C-alpha cells in the first residue's frame, strides 16, 4: 500500500460545495490541507452546450442521476425503495457542477421548528450564528440578487445585480400581482456582472443543470478551488476513499483510498473532515467498521444514515398563448414566492412551501414533458401540440419542507458495490403525510397562479422522481450525544477529531435549497476548527 506518512493537519473527503469552502478557509488559515475527491476536474469544453444534441446529454453523461450517468467515478445506488432518486455529481465542484444555482438562505424559523411549531427538533445553532458566514460565503463566490426581500432578514448588497425581467418573468409577475402574493427575484449562485478572475457573466443560455461553460455559475470548482489551491491546499482527484481508519484510542488517523490506477493508498491526518453529501457521508461512515466501531464510525447510537430528508418537489407547468421563451435564461432561476413559507396550520400541514418560478428548456424537454411529466402526444396531433408548447411553456417547482423521520434512511446494500468493490448505498424513503399535503396545497396554488398569469393549459406531476437534489439529515447535529451524530461545531460525538460539514448534519431541511446553508456551515465549522486545532488534533 502506498502511504503518505506525512500526516496532513486536515484531510477533507469530497471536493464539492462544503469541502471546497472548508479547504479554502483552512488553507487560508495556514493549515496543511489535503482533499481527496473520487471525481476529476471537468474540462468546460466537454460541456454539451455547444452541440446540436445538447439536450440528449441530460439522459447520458450529464444526467443528474448517477445510476443513469454511470461515469467510472460514480457509485451506484439502490433506489428500489424510494419514490425520489438521489441526484449528485462526482467531480471537483461536486453537485455544484450541474445545479440550478438557486441560492436562498434558510429563515430564522427554519432553525427553530420545535420551539415554534412543535415538530422535529431545533438546531443547536441559530440563523444569527450563521449569518456572518452566509455573508462571507456570498462575498467569496459571488451571488446575484436584490437585498430587501421582506420574506427574510436583511442582508448586505448582493455582489452582482438580479437577473432582469424577461418575457417569462413578466408573465409570472402578472399573475402574482393579480393574486397579491409575495414575490422577489431569486438569489443566485451566478454572476450577472464581472466578478472573480477568469469568469464570464451569464449570457442566458439556459441549461445550468448540465454545467456552465462560461464560469458564470458560482460553482465550487470555479470559486473556492482555485483560491484554496493558491493558498496551498492539495487536491488529489480520482481518489476514492474506502474507509476512515482509527487508532487504538478511537481517534481518526486517516483514510485508505483507491487511486485512479486502482491501487490502494493511505493518507494520514490529524483531523478528518467528511464532505461527501447526505448519501455519501453515511455510506462512508457505515463502511468504516473497526473493533472499536463495529457498527460504523460515529454510529454508537445508530443514527448514521437515519433521518434522510429530501425536498419533495412537484412541478406544475402552464402553456401560454404568447411566446414566453422559457429556454432563454437560467432554467431554475427567475423569481420565488414565499407567500406560504411560514407555518399556517389552517392549510392542513405544518411548516411551509416555496414556490419557485422556473423556466423551461429546449424542444426535447418540451416533447418528453420533462417538467409537466406529460409528453406531447404522438401521432397526427404531435406537431401541432409541440408548436403550441415549445417556447410557450413555463414550469413552477413546489418545494416543501420534509421533516426528519428515523425510518427514512441510507444503509449499505448487501450486494451492490461500486467499481472498487465498496458497498453501495441503499435508500429507504417514503413521502410523509405532511409533505404530501404540503405538495397538494402547493400544486393547487401553482395552478391558481398559472391561471391568473393567463395559462391556457396547465399540467402537473404530483411528485418528481428525479428530483432528489437535496440530501440532508443523515448525520444530524445536536447537543445530545444520544440523539445526534455531531455537535454544534460538526464534531462527531464519538470521535473527537472527526468532523462532518455537508448536508448530512442538517437537523431539519427548511423549504429552500440548501447549498448556501451548507457552505455557511462549512465556513462556521472551519472557523471553530482553526481556533481549536490544538485541542482537537
Amino acid at each position: 500500500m502506498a502511504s503518505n506518512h506525512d500526516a496532513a493537519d486536515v484531510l477533507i473527503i469530497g471536493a464539492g460545495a462544503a469541502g471546497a469552502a472548508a479547504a479554502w478557509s483552512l488553507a487560508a488559515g495556514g493549515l496543511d490541507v489535503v482533499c481527496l475527491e473520487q471525481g476529476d476536474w471537468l474540462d468546460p469544453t466537454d460541456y454539451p452546450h455547444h452541440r446540436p444534441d445538447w439536450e440528449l446529454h441530460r439522459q447520458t453523461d450529464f444526467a443528474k442521476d448517477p445510476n443513469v450517468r454511470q461515469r467510472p467515478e460514480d457509485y451506484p445506488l439502490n433506489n428500489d425503495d424510494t419514490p425520489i432518486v438521489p441526484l449528485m455529481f462526482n467531480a471537483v465542484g461536486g453537485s455544484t457542477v450541474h445545479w440550478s444555482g438557486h441560492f436562498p438562505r434558510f429563515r430564522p424559523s427554519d432553525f427553530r421548528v420545535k420551539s415554534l411549531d412543535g415538530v422535529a427538533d431545533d438546531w443547536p445553532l441559530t440563523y444569527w450564528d450563521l449569518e456572518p458566514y452566509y455573508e462571507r460565503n456570498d462575498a467569496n463566490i459571488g451571488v446575484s440578487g436584490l437585498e430587501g426581500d421582506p420574506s427574510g432578514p436583511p442582508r448586505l448588497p448582493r455582489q452582482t445585480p438580479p437577473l432582469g425581467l424577461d418575457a417569462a418573468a413578466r408573465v409570472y409577475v402578472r399573475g402574482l400581482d393579480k393574486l397579491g402574493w409575495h414575490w422577489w427575484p431569486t438569489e443566485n449562485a451566478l454572476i450577472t456582472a464581472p466578478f472573480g478572475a477568469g469568469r464570464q457573466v451569464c449570457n442566458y443560455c439556459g441549461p445550468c443543470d448540465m454545467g456552465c461553460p462560461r464560469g458564470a455559475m458560482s460553482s465550487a470548482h470555479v470559486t473556492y478551488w482555485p483560491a484554496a489551491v493558491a493558498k496551498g491546499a492539495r487536491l488529489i482527484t480520482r481518489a476514492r476513499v474506502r474507509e476512515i481508519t482509527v487508532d487504538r484510542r478511537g481517534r481518526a488517523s486517516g483514510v485508505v483510498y483507491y487511486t485512479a490506477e486502482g491501487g490502494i493508498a493511505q493518507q494520514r491526518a490529524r483531523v478528518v473532515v467528511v464532505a461527501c453529501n447526505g448519501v455519501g457521508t453515511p455510506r462512508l461512515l457505515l463502511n468504516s467498521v473497526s473493533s472499536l466501531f463495529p457498527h460504523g464510525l460515529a454510529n454508537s447510537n445508530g443514527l448514521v444514515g437515519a433521518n434522510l430528508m429530501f425536498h419533495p418537489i412537484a412541478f406544475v407547468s402552464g402553456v401560454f398563448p404568447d411566446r414566453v421563451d422559457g429556454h432563454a435564461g437560467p432554467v431554475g432561476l427567475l423569481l420565488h414566492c414565499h407567500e406560504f413559507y411560514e407555518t399556517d396550520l389552517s392549510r392542513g400541514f405544518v411548516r411551509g412551501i416555496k414556490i419557485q418560478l422556473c423556466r423551461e428548456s429546449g424542444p426535447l424537454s418540451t416533447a418528453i414533458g420533462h417538467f409537466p411529466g406529460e409528453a406531447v402526444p404522438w401521432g397526427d396531433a404531435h406537431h401541432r401540440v409541440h408548436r403550441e408548447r415549445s417556447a410557450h411553456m413555463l414550469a413552477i417547482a413546489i418545494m416543501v419542507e420534509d421533516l426528519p423521520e428515523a425510518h427514512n434512511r441510507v444503509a449499505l446494500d448487501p450486494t451492490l458495490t461500486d467499481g472498487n468493490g465498496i458497498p453501495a448505498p441503499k435508500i429507504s424513503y417514503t413521502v410523509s403525510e405532511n409533505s404530501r399535503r404540503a405538495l397538494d396545497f402547493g400544486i393547487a396554488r401553482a395552478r391558481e397562479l398559472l391561471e391568473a398569469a393567463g395559462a391556457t393549459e396547465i399540467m402537473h406531476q404530483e411528485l418528481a422522481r428525479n428530483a432528489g437534489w437535496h440530501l440532508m439529515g443523515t448525520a444530524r447535529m445536536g447537543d445530545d450525544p444520544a440523539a445526534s451524530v455531531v455537535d454544534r461545531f460538526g464534531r462527531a460525538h464519538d470521535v473527537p477529531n472527526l468532523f462532518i460539514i455537508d448536508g448530512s448534519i442538517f437537523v431539519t431541511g427548511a423549504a429552500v435549497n440548501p447549498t448556501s446553508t451548507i457552505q455557511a456551515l462549512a465556513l462556521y465549522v472551519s472557523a471553530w476548527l482553526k481556533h481549536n486545532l490544538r485541542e482537537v488534533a
Partner: protein
Amino acid sequence: MSEQRQDGEILAAHQVALLAAMQNRLIPSQDEMPGAGDAGCAQTVDSFLKERPALRRPILAALNAVEAAAGERAPAAAGGEASPHVAFLSLSDSDRDAALRAVEAAQPELFRALLHQTYSAYYTNPAVLLILGWRPPQPEGYPTPPPFDEALLENVKQRGKLWRDA
C-alpha cells in the same frame, strides 16, 4: 427513404425498417416537418442502443410487442421465421396507429421507452432543429433582458416583514 435496408450496430436491417415505420406514425411527416423514420431516427436510436445497453431490452421488446399487435390485425401477413417483421409494414396508417395504441395501453412502460427514444432522436436531429429554428445554447446564449426595475416591487415591500423572529 422510408425503407431502411442496412443493418444497424445493434438492430438488424429488418428491425431498422420496422422501427422507422413505427416512428413515422409516432411523429408523422407534416408540412415542412419530416416523419421521424424518414429523418433517420431509427439509425439514431440504434446508436443509442450501442452506447447504452440498458435501453436494448425495452426497445427490442417494444418492437416485438408492436409487431405482435400488428399481427393480430393482419394475420395473413404475420411474419414467420423466414420473413419476420412484416405485419406492421403491411398495415394501413390507421391500423398501424391501432397497433401502437394497443401496446401503449397494454405495456405502457415499453411504449414509453420507444416514444421517449424516438423523441430524443428527433429533437436532437440537426436537420429537424434547423427547420424548427433551434440552435445550440452556446456560444451565443440569448439576449440579456433590461436591468431589473425595482419599482415593480413596491406592493410587495409595502406588506412589510413576512418572516418570523426566532
